[in-house]
Protein backbone atom coordinates (compact mmCIF):
# COMPACT_ATOMS: atom_id res chain seq x y z
CA UNK A 1 0.00 0.00 0.00
CA UNK A 2 2.83 2.31 0.99
CA UNK A 3 4.70 1.50 -2.23
CA UNK A 4 1.56 2.22 -4.29
CA UNK A 5 1.11 5.55 -2.54
CA UNK A 6 4.75 6.42 -3.19
CA UNK A 7 4.39 5.52 -6.89
CA UNK A 8 1.29 7.71 -7.19
CA UNK A 9 3.07 10.56 -5.40
CA UNK A 10 6.06 10.24 -7.75
CA UNK A 11 3.74 10.29 -10.74
CA UNK A 12 1.98 13.41 -9.43
CA UNK A 13 5.33 15.12 -8.85
CA UNK A 14 6.60 14.23 -12.33
CA UNK A 15 3.32 15.39 -13.87
CA UNK A 16 3.53 18.66 -11.93
CA UNK A 17 7.14 19.12 -13.02
CA UNK A 18 6.28 18.47 -16.66
CA UNK A 19 3.30 20.83 -16.59
CA UNK A 20 5.58 23.40 -15.00
CA UNK A 21 7.97 23.01 -17.89
CA UNK A 22 5.13 23.42 -20.34
CA UNK A 23 3.91 26.58 -18.68
CA UNK A 24 7.45 28.00 -18.71
CA UNK A 25 7.40 28.05 -22.50
CA UNK A 26 6.57 31.62 -23.47
CA UNK A 27 4.77 32.36 -26.69
CA UNK A 28 6.95 34.40 -29.03
CA UNK A 29 5.20 37.69 -29.66
CA UNK A 30 5.24 38.74 -33.27
CA UNK A 31 6.01 42.46 -33.54
CA UNK A 32 3.72 43.06 -36.50
CA UNK A 33 0.20 42.47 -37.76
CA UNK A 34 -1.33 42.48 -41.22
CA UNK A 35 -4.20 44.81 -42.05
CA UNK A 36 -7.10 43.99 -44.39
CA UNK A 37 -5.57 46.51 -46.81
CA UNK A 38 -2.45 44.33 -47.12
CA UNK A 39 -0.18 46.63 -45.16
CA UNK A 40 1.91 45.69 -42.15
CA UNK A 41 1.57 47.50 -38.83
CA UNK A 42 4.87 47.14 -36.98
CA UNK A 43 4.70 47.38 -33.18
CA UNK A 44 1.76 49.78 -33.58
CA UNK A 45 4.31 52.39 -34.60
CA UNK A 46 4.89 52.07 -38.34
CA UNK A 47 2.70 51.05 -41.26
CA UNK A 48 4.03 50.02 -44.64
CA UNK A 49 3.40 47.88 -47.68
CA UNK A 50 5.52 44.73 -47.30
CA UNK A 51 7.54 43.29 -50.19
CA UNK A 52 6.59 39.93 -51.72
CA UNK A 53 7.23 36.81 -49.57
CA UNK A 54 10.54 36.02 -51.30
CA UNK A 55 11.98 38.85 -49.19
CA UNK A 56 12.98 37.61 -45.75
CA UNK A 57 12.36 39.73 -42.69
CA UNK A 58 15.55 41.05 -41.18
CA UNK A 59 15.65 42.14 -37.57
CA UNK A 60 18.59 43.11 -35.42
CA UNK A 61 18.67 43.49 -31.66
CA UNK A 62 18.23 47.12 -30.68
CA UNK A 63 21.39 48.94 -29.76
CA UNK A 64 23.70 51.66 -30.85
CA UNK A 65 23.36 52.38 -34.57
CA UNK A 66 21.34 49.27 -35.24
CA UNK A 67 18.57 49.20 -37.76
CA UNK A 68 15.01 48.61 -36.61
CA UNK A 69 14.02 46.11 -39.25
CA UNK A 70 14.37 45.38 -42.92
CA UNK A 71 14.11 42.79 -45.66
CA UNK A 72 16.66 40.67 -47.46
CA UNK A 73 16.69 38.64 -50.65
CA UNK A 74 19.33 36.32 -52.06
CA UNK A 75 19.73 37.07 -55.74
CA UNK A 76 20.72 34.63 -58.49
CA UNK A 77 24.43 34.63 -59.27
CA UNK A 78 27.68 34.14 -57.40
CA UNK A 79 28.63 35.71 -54.07
CA UNK A 80 27.93 38.43 -52.96
CA UNK A 81 24.63 38.64 -54.87
CA UNK A 82 22.19 39.82 -52.24
CA UNK A 83 19.83 42.75 -51.76
CA UNK A 84 18.86 44.23 -48.40
CA UNK A 85 16.71 47.20 -47.47
CA UNK A 86 15.85 48.65 -44.11
CA UNK A 87 14.34 51.45 -42.09
CA UNK A 88 16.74 53.09 -39.66
CA UNK A 89 15.52 55.32 -36.84
CA UNK A 90 19.02 56.70 -36.21
CA UNK A 91 21.11 56.62 -39.37
CA UNK A 92 24.85 57.33 -39.11
CA UNK A 93 25.76 60.93 -38.42
CA UNK A 94 24.62 63.54 -35.94
CA UNK A 95 23.36 66.56 -37.86
CA UNK A 96 19.63 67.09 -37.75
CA UNK A 97 19.64 70.57 -39.26
CA UNK A 98 20.03 69.60 -42.91
CA UNK A 99 19.78 66.49 -45.01
CA UNK A 100 22.90 67.49 -46.92
CA UNK A 101 24.93 67.72 -43.71
CA UNK A 102 23.66 64.36 -42.56
CA UNK A 103 24.38 62.84 -45.95
CA UNK A 104 28.06 63.88 -45.69
CA UNK A 105 28.30 62.35 -42.21
CA UNK A 106 26.37 59.25 -43.17
CA UNK A 107 28.61 58.28 -46.05
CA UNK A 108 31.69 58.50 -43.86
CA UNK A 109 30.45 55.37 -42.09
CA UNK A 110 28.02 53.68 -44.44
CA UNK A 111 29.45 50.27 -45.41
CA UNK A 112 32.64 51.48 -43.76
CA UNK A 113 34.01 47.98 -43.20
CA UNK A 114 33.82 47.20 -46.89
CA UNK A 115 36.27 50.04 -47.74
CA UNK A 116 34.58 51.03 -50.98
CA UNK A 117 35.19 53.80 -53.45
CA UNK A 118 31.80 55.52 -53.63
CA UNK A 119 30.47 57.51 -56.52
CA UNK A 120 27.25 59.51 -56.24
CA UNK A 121 25.05 58.68 -59.20
CA UNK A 122 22.08 60.85 -58.34
CA UNK A 123 20.91 63.14 -55.56
CA UNK A 124 17.43 64.65 -55.45
CA UNK A 125 14.83 66.07 -53.09
CA UNK A 126 11.87 63.78 -52.52
CA UNK A 127 8.69 63.60 -50.51
CA UNK A 128 8.91 60.99 -47.79
CA UNK A 129 6.97 60.19 -44.60
CA UNK A 130 4.76 63.22 -45.19
CA UNK A 131 7.54 65.76 -45.64
CA UNK A 132 10.56 66.76 -47.61
CA UNK A 133 13.48 64.36 -47.83
CA UNK A 134 16.62 63.62 -49.76
CA UNK A 135 17.35 60.55 -51.89
CA UNK A 136 20.94 59.68 -52.78
CA UNK A 137 21.86 56.93 -55.22
CA UNK A 138 25.44 55.69 -55.03
CA UNK A 139 27.63 52.97 -56.38
CA UNK A 140 30.60 51.62 -54.45
CA UNK A 141 33.36 49.46 -55.86
CA UNK A 142 35.97 47.28 -54.21
CA UNK A 143 38.66 46.69 -56.86
CA UNK A 144 40.55 44.31 -54.55
CA UNK A 145 37.71 41.90 -53.84
CA UNK A 146 36.18 42.62 -57.24
CA UNK A 147 32.79 43.40 -55.75
CA UNK A 148 30.43 46.30 -56.18
CA UNK A 149 27.31 47.64 -54.51
CA UNK A 150 24.52 49.88 -55.70
CA UNK A 151 22.79 51.65 -52.85
CA UNK A 152 20.07 54.20 -52.36
CA UNK A 153 19.62 56.15 -49.17
CA UNK A 154 16.52 58.20 -48.43
CA UNK A 155 16.62 60.67 -45.56
CA UNK A 156 13.39 61.95 -44.03
CA UNK A 157 12.28 63.62 -40.82
CA UNK A 158 10.48 62.28 -37.80
CA UNK A 159 9.90 65.14 -35.41
CA UNK A 160 13.22 66.90 -34.85
CA UNK A 161 15.31 63.96 -35.94
CA UNK A 162 16.47 62.59 -39.27
CA UNK A 163 15.54 59.00 -40.08
CA UNK A 164 16.72 56.92 -43.00
CA UNK A 165 15.82 54.18 -45.40
CA UNK A 166 18.42 52.35 -47.41
CA UNK A 167 18.85 49.57 -49.89
CA UNK A 168 22.09 47.87 -50.82
CA UNK A 169 22.51 45.48 -53.71
CA UNK A 170 25.81 43.61 -53.84
CA UNK A 171 27.20 42.03 -56.96
CA UNK A 172 30.49 40.63 -58.28
CA UNK A 173 32.26 43.34 -60.26
CA UNK A 174 31.12 41.88 -63.60
CA UNK A 175 27.55 41.18 -62.42
CA UNK A 176 24.50 43.20 -63.42
CA UNK A 177 22.11 44.89 -61.01
CA UNK A 178 18.45 43.97 -60.68
CA UNK A 179 16.80 47.39 -60.69
CA UNK A 180 13.36 45.94 -59.96
CA UNK A 181 14.50 45.53 -56.34
CA UNK A 182 14.90 49.30 -56.17
CA UNK A 183 11.26 49.67 -57.28
CA UNK A 184 10.25 47.38 -54.41
CA UNK A 185 12.26 49.58 -52.05
CA UNK A 186 10.70 52.76 -53.44
CA UNK A 187 7.20 51.33 -52.90
CA UNK A 188 8.14 50.37 -49.33
CA UNK A 189 9.41 53.89 -48.63
CA UNK A 190 6.45 55.59 -50.32
CA UNK A 191 4.00 53.53 -48.27
CA UNK A 192 5.79 54.11 -44.96
CA UNK A 193 3.82 55.97 -42.28
CA UNK A 194 4.38 56.82 -38.64
CA UNK A 195 1.37 55.86 -36.57
CA UNK A 196 2.48 57.67 -33.45
CA UNK A 197 5.07 60.08 -32.16
CA UNK A 198 8.57 58.72 -31.74
CA UNK A 199 10.04 57.99 -28.32
CA UNK A 200 12.14 61.13 -28.59
CA UNK A 201 9.10 63.33 -29.28
CA UNK A 202 7.39 62.09 -26.14
CA UNK A 203 10.21 62.99 -23.76
Amino acid sequence: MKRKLLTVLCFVLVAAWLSGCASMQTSKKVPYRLTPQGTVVWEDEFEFMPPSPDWKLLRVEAGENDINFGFMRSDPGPFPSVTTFAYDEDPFGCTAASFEGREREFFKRFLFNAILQFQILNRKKVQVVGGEGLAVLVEGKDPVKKEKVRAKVVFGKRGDRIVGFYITQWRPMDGSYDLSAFDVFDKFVASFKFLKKSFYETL
Partner: protein
Amino acid sequence: MEGHQRNLYLYDRFNARVVGVSRDDVTTLKYWANGLGITFPLLSNITAFLGAYFDIQPEGKPIFGRRTVIIDKTGIIRYVRDGSPDFKDILLFLKKLNQEGGKP
Protein backbone atom coordinates in the same frame (compact mmCIF):
# COMPACT_ATOMS: atom_id res chain seq x y z
CA MET B 1 29.41 58.52 -29.30
CA GLU B 2 27.38 59.59 -32.32
CA GLY B 3 24.26 58.56 -30.43
CA HIS B 4 25.19 60.88 -27.56
CA GLN B 5 25.85 63.68 -30.03
CA ARG B 6 22.40 63.17 -31.56
CA ASN B 7 20.88 63.35 -28.07
CA LEU B 8 22.68 66.50 -26.88
CA TYR B 9 19.56 68.66 -27.19
CA LEU B 10 17.71 66.19 -24.98
CA TYR B 11 20.54 66.07 -22.43
CA ASP B 12 20.34 69.88 -22.31
CA ARG B 13 16.62 69.63 -21.66
CA PHE B 14 17.32 67.39 -18.68
CA ASN B 15 20.19 69.55 -17.38
CA ALA B 16 22.71 66.81 -18.12
CA ARG B 17 26.16 67.03 -19.63
CA VAL B 18 27.97 64.19 -21.34
CA VAL B 19 31.69 63.44 -21.28
CA GLY B 20 33.29 60.60 -23.23
CA VAL B 21 36.23 58.64 -21.87
CA SER B 22 38.62 56.70 -24.06
CA ARG B 23 42.00 55.00 -23.75
CA ASP B 24 43.11 56.73 -26.97
CA ASP B 25 45.57 59.60 -26.91
CA VAL B 26 44.56 63.26 -27.36
CA THR B 27 45.69 63.50 -30.97
CA THR B 28 43.69 60.44 -31.97
CA LEU B 29 40.62 61.70 -30.11
CA LYS B 30 40.83 65.12 -31.76
CA TYR B 31 41.00 63.52 -35.19
CA TRP B 32 38.21 61.12 -34.37
CA ALA B 33 35.91 63.79 -32.84
CA ASN B 34 36.48 66.05 -35.81
CA GLY B 35 35.65 63.27 -38.25
CA LEU B 36 32.43 62.33 -36.52
CA GLY B 37 31.37 65.86 -35.59
CA ILE B 38 31.52 65.21 -31.84
CA THR B 39 31.28 68.49 -29.91
CA PHE B 40 31.15 67.30 -26.29
CA PRO B 41 34.36 66.79 -24.27
CA LEU B 42 36.32 63.58 -24.69
CA LEU B 43 38.79 62.62 -22.01
CA SER B 44 41.98 60.81 -22.93
CA ASN B 45 42.43 58.18 -20.27
CA ILE B 46 45.54 56.47 -21.54
CA THR B 47 46.76 55.39 -18.10
CA ALA B 48 43.35 53.95 -17.09
CA PHE B 49 43.35 56.36 -14.14
CA LEU B 50 39.62 57.01 -14.42
CA GLY B 51 38.83 53.32 -14.44
CA ALA B 52 40.68 52.90 -11.17
CA TYR B 53 39.25 56.15 -9.73
CA PHE B 54 35.67 55.06 -10.35
CA ASP B 55 36.47 51.48 -9.39
CA ILE B 56 35.37 50.11 -12.74
CA GLN B 57 38.67 48.66 -13.87
CA PRO B 58 38.04 44.92 -14.18
CA GLU B 59 40.58 42.99 -12.16
CA GLY B 60 43.36 41.50 -14.25
CA LYS B 61 42.24 43.16 -17.48
CA PRO B 62 44.31 45.86 -19.13
CA ILE B 63 41.34 47.61 -20.75
CA PHE B 64 37.79 48.24 -19.76
CA GLY B 65 34.76 47.72 -21.92
CA ARG B 66 32.01 50.18 -22.66
CA ARG B 67 30.28 51.46 -19.60
CA THR B 68 27.74 54.23 -19.10
CA VAL B 69 27.83 56.06 -15.78
CA ILE B 70 25.47 58.80 -14.65
CA ILE B 71 26.64 60.95 -11.76
CA ASP B 72 24.25 63.33 -10.03
CA LYS B 73 25.08 66.89 -9.03
CA THR B 74 26.21 65.76 -5.60
CA GLY B 75 28.73 63.39 -7.11
CA ILE B 76 26.83 60.20 -6.41
CA ILE B 77 26.89 57.53 -9.10
CA ARG B 78 23.23 56.87 -9.88
CA TYR B 79 23.41 54.67 -12.95
CA VAL B 80 25.91 52.13 -14.26
CA ARG B 81 25.35 49.93 -17.28
CA ASP B 82 27.86 47.85 -19.23
CA GLY B 83 27.90 47.37 -22.97
CA SER B 84 26.68 49.62 -25.74
CA PRO B 85 24.66 52.53 -24.37
CA ASP B 86 20.91 52.04 -24.27
CA PHE B 87 19.98 55.58 -25.21
CA LYS B 88 16.29 55.28 -24.47
CA ASP B 89 17.04 53.92 -21.01
CA ILE B 90 19.57 56.69 -20.42
CA LEU B 91 17.16 59.41 -21.53
CA LEU B 92 14.34 58.07 -19.37
CA PHE B 93 16.69 57.93 -16.39
CA LEU B 94 17.90 61.48 -16.95
CA LYS B 95 14.33 62.71 -17.31
CA LYS B 96 13.41 61.06 -14.02
CA LEU B 97 16.51 62.41 -12.30
CA ASN B 98 15.76 65.91 -13.57
CA GLN B 99 12.18 65.69 -12.34
CA GLU B 100 13.46 64.62 -8.92
CA GLY B 101 15.53 67.78 -8.85
CA GLY B 102 18.74 65.82 -8.74
CA LYS B 103 20.37 67.37 -11.74
CA PRO B 104 23.02 65.05 -13.14
